[in-house]
């Protein structure tokens, strides 16, 4: 059994206070999650769930929430996209330490992954950064960390696909099929 840490964010009815569902969430098995209820109409659950696989942990966690709140809609999962500050908190290191890796260029090593959003603050896929450190045996990243980040990454893509309802005739799909990295 491994401990998997992940966050699920749900949309409730507009302006609905999630506090009324706390007892139901506990009884449905969310007693291994820290619930955030600061915004009406939303619920965020930070799980630390013991399970055989990351997929099983996430699947049972989603079910526990929707058992308690049948109309809850899953809108995103994390850790997925983050800046260096957020990843430092996640990996238990300083932001300065992460910046050092992000800036350094070494011809011997695979270069630091490219941010997916560049601006005043850059954002990366957490999976990319964690995998990069895992390959180099740094930041004490374990196999199960990569496993849960991959599952969360795939889950977000699935949510996006359903939201956007891509069809197979999408012109861009065929355009990027052979050239996208």
């Amino acid at each position: 059994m491994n401990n998997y840490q992940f966050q699920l964010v749900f949309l409730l009815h507009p302006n609905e206070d999630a506090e009324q569902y706390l007892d139901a969430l506990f009884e449905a098995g969310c007693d291994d999650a820290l619930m955030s209820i600061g915004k009406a109409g939303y619920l965020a659950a930070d799980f630390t769930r013991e399970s055989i696989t990351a997929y099983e942990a996430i699947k049972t966690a989603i079910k526990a929430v929707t058992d308690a709140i049948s109309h809850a809609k899953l809108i995103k999962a994390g850790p997925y996209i983050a800046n260096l500050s957020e990843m430092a908190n996640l990996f238990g290191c300083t932001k300065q330490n992460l910046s050092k890796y992000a800036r350094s260029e070494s011809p011997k090593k695979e270069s630091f992954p490219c941010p997916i959003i560049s601006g005043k603050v850059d954002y990366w896929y957490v999976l990319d950064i964690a995998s990069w450190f895992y390959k180099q045996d740094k930041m004490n990243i374990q196999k199960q960390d990569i496993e849960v980040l991959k599952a969360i990454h795939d889950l977000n893509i699935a949510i996006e696909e359903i939201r956007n309802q891509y069809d197979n005739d999408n012109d861009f799909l065929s355009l990027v099929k052979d050239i996208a990295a």
Partner: protein
Amino acid sequence: MPSKKHPNKHIEEALQYAESRGWRIEKSSGQAHSWGKMFCPENSSLCRNSLFCIKSIWSTPRNPQQHARDIKRAIDGCTMIEENDDE
């Protein structure tokens, strides 16, 4: 100090850490499983739409030590505090 202490010493310690970082602790009434709530001092809509500014604390979480660790991690994860550190 919280007006009433959490019965688990690990969680109580995490709540004291929360208070030392400016969070306000409020004991619930009339809830079977939610011991109370904690409120972020920043409470800003600029920080992840303020969703994470109020957290619920369980009376009897599955693993109290882990719940205490999760509470501390959440406090350290406040993006407003980190942004302030940057400037």
